[in-house]
Protein backbone atom coordinates (compact mmCIF):
# COMPACT_ATOMS: atom_id res chain seq x y z
CA UNK A 1 0.00 0.00 0.00
CA UNK A 2 1.46 3.36 -0.99
CA UNK A 3 1.74 6.16 1.52
CA UNK A 4 -0.90 8.24 -0.29
CA UNK A 5 -3.35 5.36 -0.24
CA UNK A 6 -2.74 4.86 3.47
CA UNK A 7 -3.47 8.49 4.22
CA UNK A 8 -6.63 8.37 2.16
CA UNK A 9 -8.01 5.30 3.87
CA UNK A 10 -7.46 7.04 7.19
CA UNK A 11 -9.28 10.17 6.07
CA UNK A 12 -12.40 8.53 4.68
CA UNK A 13 -14.70 6.56 6.90
CA UNK A 14 -15.28 3.16 5.38
CA UNK A 15 -18.04 0.93 6.53
CA UNK A 16 -19.20 -2.50 5.52
CA UNK A 17 -22.90 -1.87 4.88
CA UNK A 18 -23.79 -5.55 4.95
CA UNK A 19 -25.06 -6.73 8.35
CA UNK A 20 -22.58 -9.06 10.06
CA UNK A 21 -23.25 -12.79 9.98
CA UNK A 22 -25.53 -13.79 12.83
CA UNK A 23 -26.93 -10.28 13.13
CA UNK A 24 -30.70 -9.99 13.58
CA UNK A 25 -30.86 -7.14 11.05
CA UNK A 26 -32.92 -8.31 8.09
CA UNK A 27 -31.87 -6.97 4.71
CA UNK A 28 -34.83 -6.22 2.44
CA UNK A 29 -34.63 -5.09 -1.14
CA UNK A 30 -36.73 -2.02 -2.11
CA UNK A 31 -39.39 -4.16 -3.79
CA UNK A 32 -39.39 -7.04 -1.30
CA UNK A 33 -42.81 -5.98 -0.02
CA UNK A 34 -44.32 -5.19 -3.40
CA UNK A 35 -47.26 -7.41 -4.29
CA UNK A 36 -47.02 -8.01 -8.01
CA UNK A 37 -50.15 -8.62 -10.01
CA UNK A 38 -49.13 -11.04 -12.70
CA UNK A 39 -51.24 -11.71 -15.73
CA UNK A 40 -51.89 -14.64 -18.01
CA UNK A 41 -49.89 -17.72 -18.68
CA UNK A 42 -48.33 -16.39 -21.88
CA UNK A 43 -45.87 -13.91 -20.53
CA UNK A 44 -44.43 -11.50 -23.06
CA UNK A 45 -42.46 -9.76 -20.36
CA UNK A 46 -40.49 -11.27 -17.51
CA UNK A 47 -39.39 -9.03 -14.70
CA UNK A 48 -37.07 -9.75 -11.81
CA UNK A 49 -35.54 -7.58 -9.16
CA UNK A 50 -31.84 -8.14 -8.55
CA UNK A 51 -32.09 -6.57 -5.13
CA UNK A 52 -29.35 -6.19 -2.55
CA UNK A 53 -26.44 -5.96 -4.96
CA UNK A 54 -23.36 -3.89 -4.16
CA UNK A 55 -23.39 -0.60 -6.06
CA UNK A 56 -20.22 1.49 -6.09
CA UNK A 57 -19.97 4.87 -7.79
CA UNK A 58 -16.43 5.34 -9.09
CA UNK A 59 -15.26 8.84 -9.98
CA UNK A 60 -11.97 9.88 -11.46
CA UNK A 61 -11.02 12.45 -14.06
CA UNK A 62 -8.04 11.02 -15.89
CA UNK A 63 -6.32 9.61 -12.79
CA UNK A 64 -4.15 6.86 -14.32
CA UNK A 65 -3.40 5.34 -10.91
CA UNK A 66 -7.11 4.80 -10.32
CA UNK A 67 -7.61 3.37 -13.82
CA UNK A 68 -4.75 0.94 -13.19
CA UNK A 69 -6.23 -0.01 -9.82
CA UNK A 70 -9.60 -0.83 -11.41
CA UNK A 71 -7.86 -2.94 -14.01
CA UNK A 72 -5.82 -4.80 -11.40
CA UNK A 73 -8.62 -5.42 -8.90
CA UNK A 74 -11.46 -6.11 -11.34
CA UNK A 75 -9.62 -7.28 -14.44
CA UNK A 76 -11.65 -4.82 -16.52
CA UNK A 77 -10.83 -1.32 -17.67
CA UNK A 78 -13.17 1.64 -17.27
CA UNK A 79 -15.41 1.77 -20.37
CA UNK A 80 -15.78 4.77 -22.66
CA UNK A 81 -18.88 6.89 -23.28
CA UNK A 82 -22.21 4.98 -23.16
CA UNK A 83 -20.43 1.63 -22.88
CA UNK A 84 -20.27 -1.09 -20.26
CA UNK A 85 -18.00 -4.00 -19.50
CA UNK A 86 -18.77 -7.13 -17.54
CA UNK A 87 -17.04 -10.32 -16.48
CA UNK A 88 -18.14 -13.92 -16.00
CA UNK A 89 -18.85 -13.45 -12.31
CA UNK A 90 -21.51 -10.84 -13.08
CA UNK A 91 -19.56 -7.74 -12.13
CA UNK A 92 -20.44 -4.82 -14.40
CA UNK A 93 -18.91 -1.38 -14.88
CA UNK A 94 -21.16 1.13 -16.62
CA UNK A 95 -20.17 4.55 -17.95
CA UNK A 96 -22.52 7.17 -16.53
CA UNK A 97 -20.63 10.43 -17.11
CA UNK A 98 -17.19 11.46 -18.46
CA UNK A 99 -15.72 11.09 -14.97
CA UNK A 100 -18.17 8.68 -13.37
CA UNK A 101 -18.87 4.95 -13.56
CA UNK A 102 -21.24 2.62 -11.74
CA UNK A 103 -19.79 -0.70 -10.64
CA UNK A 104 -22.06 -3.48 -9.42
CA UNK A 105 -20.73 -6.48 -7.57
CA UNK A 106 -22.37 -8.97 -5.23
CA UNK A 107 -23.44 -7.47 -1.93
CA UNK A 108 -20.90 -9.44 0.06
CA UNK A 109 -18.03 -8.32 -2.20
CA UNK A 110 -18.77 -4.59 -2.17
CA UNK A 111 -16.73 -3.73 0.90
CA UNK A 112 -13.71 -5.83 -0.01
CA UNK A 113 -13.67 -4.47 -3.59
CA UNK A 114 -13.84 -0.93 -2.23
CA UNK A 115 -10.96 -1.62 0.14
CA UNK A 116 -8.85 -3.27 -2.56
CA UNK A 117 -9.39 -0.31 -4.89
CA UNK A 118 -8.46 2.14 -2.15
CA UNK A 119 -5.34 0.13 -1.36
CA UNK A 120 -4.20 0.19 -5.00
CA UNK A 121 -5.18 3.69 -6.10
CA UNK A 122 -3.65 7.01 -5.16
CA UNK A 123 -4.32 10.61 -6.06
CA UNK A 124 -7.68 12.23 -6.64
CA UNK A 125 -10.60 9.81 -7.00
CA UNK A 126 -13.76 8.83 -5.19
CA UNK A 127 -15.56 5.59 -4.39
CA UNK A 128 -19.02 5.79 -2.85
CA UNK A 129 -21.15 2.84 -1.85
CA UNK A 130 -24.71 3.64 -2.95
CA UNK A 131 -26.07 0.09 -2.59
CA UNK A 132 -28.90 1.21 -0.32
CA UNK A 133 -30.07 3.92 -2.68
CA UNK A 134 -30.92 2.00 -5.80
CA UNK A 135 -32.02 -1.34 -7.14
CA UNK A 136 -31.73 -3.32 -10.36
CA UNK A 137 -34.69 -4.54 -12.42
CA UNK A 138 -34.16 -7.04 -15.20
CA UNK A 139 -36.73 -6.88 -17.96
CA UNK A 140 -36.75 -9.60 -20.57
CA UNK A 141 -39.01 -11.28 -23.08
CA UNK A 142 -40.25 -10.65 -26.59
CA UNK A 143 -42.29 -7.63 -25.55
CA UNK A 144 -39.78 -6.07 -23.14
CA UNK A 145 -38.72 -3.56 -25.76
CA UNK A 146 -42.37 -2.59 -26.34
CA UNK A 147 -42.68 -1.75 -22.64
CA UNK A 148 -39.61 0.49 -22.80
CA UNK A 149 -40.93 2.15 -25.96
CA UNK A 150 -44.02 3.28 -24.07
CA UNK A 151 -42.03 5.79 -22.07
CA UNK A 152 -38.46 5.89 -23.30
CA UNK A 153 -37.88 8.53 -25.95
CA UNK A 154 -34.41 7.14 -26.56
CA UNK A 155 -34.43 4.97 -29.69
CA UNK A 156 -34.30 1.36 -28.52
CA UNK A 157 -33.68 -0.05 -32.00
CA UNK A 158 -30.59 -2.23 -32.20
CA UNK A 159 -28.87 0.25 -34.52
CA UNK A 160 -28.95 2.98 -31.87
CA UNK A 161 -29.06 0.82 -28.73
CA UNK A 162 -26.82 -2.22 -29.28
CA UNK A 163 -26.13 -4.85 -26.65
CA UNK A 164 -23.79 -3.48 -23.98
CA UNK A 165 -24.79 0.16 -24.39
CA UNK A 166 -25.74 2.15 -21.31
CA UNK A 167 -28.02 5.17 -21.39
CA UNK A 168 -29.17 7.27 -18.45
CA UNK A 169 -32.40 8.95 -19.42
CA UNK A 170 -35.87 9.92 -18.23
CA UNK A 171 -38.13 6.97 -17.60
CA UNK A 172 -41.85 7.18 -16.74
CA UNK A 173 -41.54 10.65 -15.15
CA UNK A 174 -38.57 9.36 -13.18
CA UNK A 175 -35.10 8.39 -14.33
CA UNK A 176 -33.28 5.15 -15.01
CA UNK A 177 -29.91 3.90 -16.09
CA UNK A 178 -30.78 1.51 -18.91
CA UNK A 179 -28.43 -1.15 -20.23
CA UNK A 180 -29.13 -3.58 -23.03
CA UNK A 181 -27.93 -6.93 -21.73
CA UNK A 182 -29.11 -9.07 -24.63
CA UNK A 183 -31.27 -8.76 -27.70
CA UNK A 184 -34.44 -8.90 -25.61
CA UNK A 185 -33.01 -8.40 -22.16
CA UNK A 186 -32.76 -5.02 -20.46
CA UNK A 187 -31.43 -3.83 -17.15
CA UNK A 188 -32.94 -0.84 -15.38
CA UNK A 189 -31.15 0.72 -12.42
CA UNK A 190 -33.61 2.86 -10.53
CA UNK A 191 -33.69 4.89 -7.34
CA UNK A 192 -34.98 3.14 -4.24
CA UNK A 193 -37.39 6.00 -3.55
CA UNK A 194 -38.97 5.59 -7.00
CA UNK A 195 -39.08 1.79 -6.95
CA UNK A 196 -42.71 1.42 -5.80
CA UNK A 197 -43.90 3.92 -8.38
CA UNK A 198 -41.86 2.39 -11.19
CA UNK A 199 -42.96 -1.13 -10.25
CA UNK A 200 -46.59 0.00 -10.49
CA UNK A 201 -45.85 1.70 -13.81
CA UNK A 202 -44.09 -1.37 -15.24
CA UNK A 203 -46.83 -3.67 -14.00
CA UNK A 204 -49.42 -1.52 -15.76
CA UNK A 205 -47.38 -1.09 -18.94
CA UNK A 206 -46.48 -4.77 -19.21
CA UNK A 207 -49.99 -6.00 -18.36
CA UNK A 208 -51.20 -6.19 -21.94
CA UNK A 209 -48.30 -8.44 -22.98
CA UNK A 210 -48.57 -10.71 -19.96
CA UNK A 211 -46.23 -10.20 -17.02
CA UNK A 212 -44.28 -12.86 -15.22
CA UNK A 213 -42.26 -12.17 -12.08
CA UNK A 214 -39.28 -14.31 -11.18
Amino acid at each position, binding site marked *: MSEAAETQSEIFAQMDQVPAAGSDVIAESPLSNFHWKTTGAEAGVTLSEQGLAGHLVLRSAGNSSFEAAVEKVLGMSLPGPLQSVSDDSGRVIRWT*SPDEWLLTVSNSDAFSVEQQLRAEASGHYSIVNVSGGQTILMLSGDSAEMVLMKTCHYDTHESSFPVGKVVRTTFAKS*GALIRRVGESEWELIIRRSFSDYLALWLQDAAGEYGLQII
Partner: protein
Amino acid sequence: MLCIFCPHCGEYREEEEFSARGQAHIKRPEDPEACSDEEWGNYMFFRKNPKGLHHELWVHSAGCGKFFNMTRDTVSYEIKETYKIGEQPSVVAAEK
Protein backbone atom coordinates in the same frame (compact mmCIF):
# COMPACT_ATOMS: atom_id res chain seq x y z
CA MET B 1 -39.10 19.16 -28.98
CA LEU B 2 -35.51 20.16 -29.60
CA CYS B 3 -32.91 17.52 -30.34
CA ILE B 4 -29.75 18.55 -28.54
CA PHE B 5 -26.26 17.20 -29.13
CA CYS B 6 -24.52 16.52 -25.79
CA PRO B 7 -20.78 17.04 -26.35
CA HIS B 8 -20.01 14.73 -23.42
CA CYS B 9 -22.22 11.79 -24.45
CA GLY B 10 -21.39 12.44 -28.11
CA GLU B 11 -24.92 12.00 -29.41
CA TYR B 12 -28.27 13.71 -29.86
CA ARG B 13 -30.79 13.48 -27.03
CA GLU B 14 -34.29 14.81 -26.46
CA GLU B 15 -34.75 18.22 -24.89
CA GLU B 16 -36.54 16.61 -21.93
CA GLU B 17 -33.18 15.38 -20.60
CA PHE B 18 -31.69 18.89 -20.49
CA SER B 19 -32.13 22.03 -18.41
CA ALA B 20 -31.25 25.55 -19.54
CA ARG B 21 -29.20 27.57 -17.05
CA GLY B 22 -29.07 31.03 -18.63
CA GLN B 23 -26.36 33.04 -20.30
CA ALA B 24 -22.95 31.42 -20.84
CA HIS B 25 -19.43 32.87 -20.53
CA ILE B 26 -20.17 35.02 -17.48
CA LYS B 27 -16.80 35.72 -15.93
CA ARG B 28 -16.56 36.37 -12.22
CA PRO B 29 -14.47 39.50 -11.59
CA GLU B 30 -10.89 38.59 -10.62
CA ASP B 31 -10.98 40.78 -7.55
CA PRO B 32 -14.55 41.28 -6.29
CA GLU B 33 -13.35 43.60 -3.49
CA ALA B 34 -12.01 46.04 -6.05
CA CYS B 35 -15.23 46.17 -8.08
CA SER B 36 -17.44 49.23 -8.18
CA ASP B 37 -21.08 48.63 -7.28
CA GLU B 38 -21.97 48.99 -10.94
CA GLU B 39 -19.43 46.37 -12.09
CA TRP B 40 -20.55 43.93 -9.41
CA GLY B 41 -24.22 44.60 -10.12
CA ASN B 42 -23.67 43.99 -13.83
CA TYR B 43 -21.88 40.72 -13.11
CA MET B 44 -24.48 39.59 -10.62
CA PHE B 45 -27.81 40.58 -12.13
CA PHE B 46 -27.64 41.89 -15.68
CA ARG B 47 -28.03 39.44 -18.54
CA LYS B 48 -28.21 39.77 -22.29
CA ASN B 49 -31.51 39.21 -24.05
CA PRO B 50 -30.52 39.24 -27.70
CA LYS B 51 -32.76 38.77 -30.69
CA GLY B 52 -30.70 36.31 -32.70
CA LEU B 53 -27.60 34.39 -31.65
CA HIS B 54 -27.25 33.73 -27.93
CA HIS B 55 -24.65 31.71 -26.03
CA GLU B 56 -26.30 29.72 -23.27
CA LEU B 57 -25.32 27.35 -20.49
CA TRP B 58 -27.16 24.03 -20.48
CA VAL B 59 -26.92 20.91 -18.36
CA HIS B 60 -27.62 17.32 -19.36
CA SER B 61 -29.43 16.86 -16.07
CA ALA B 62 -31.19 13.54 -16.71
CA GLY B 63 -28.23 12.11 -18.63
CA CYS B 64 -24.55 12.52 -17.86
CA GLY B 65 -25.14 15.51 -15.58
CA LYS B 66 -22.49 17.66 -17.22
CA PHE B 67 -22.70 21.34 -18.15
CA PHE B 68 -21.96 22.57 -21.65
CA ASN B 69 -22.54 25.67 -23.77
CA MET B 70 -24.91 26.12 -26.66
CA THR B 71 -25.19 28.76 -29.36
CA ARG B 72 -28.86 29.17 -30.19
CA ASP B 73 -30.89 31.51 -32.36
CA THR B 74 -33.56 33.02 -30.13
CA VAL B 75 -35.77 33.84 -33.12
CA SER B 76 -35.80 30.54 -34.99
CA TYR B 77 -34.79 28.31 -32.01
CA GLU B 78 -32.15 26.81 -34.29
CA ILE B 79 -29.22 25.36 -32.38
CA LYS B 80 -26.01 26.36 -34.15
CA GLU B 81 -23.62 24.31 -32.04
CA THR B 82 -22.92 22.90 -28.61
CA TYR B 83 -19.46 22.91 -27.07
CA LYS B 84 -17.79 21.99 -23.80
CA ILE B 85 -17.13 24.41 -20.96
CA GLY B 86 -13.81 26.17 -21.50
CA GLU B 87 -14.06 26.03 -25.30
CA GLN B 88 -14.84 29.08 -27.40
CA PRO B 89 -17.84 29.19 -29.78
CA SER B 90 -17.09 29.01 -33.49
CA VAL B 91 -20.41 30.63 -34.42
CA VAL B 92 -20.63 34.18 -33.08
CA ALA B 93 -22.89 37.14 -33.86
CA ALA B 94 -21.40 39.83 -36.12
CA GLU B 95 -20.13 42.86 -34.20
CA LYS B 96 -22.40 45.86 -34.54
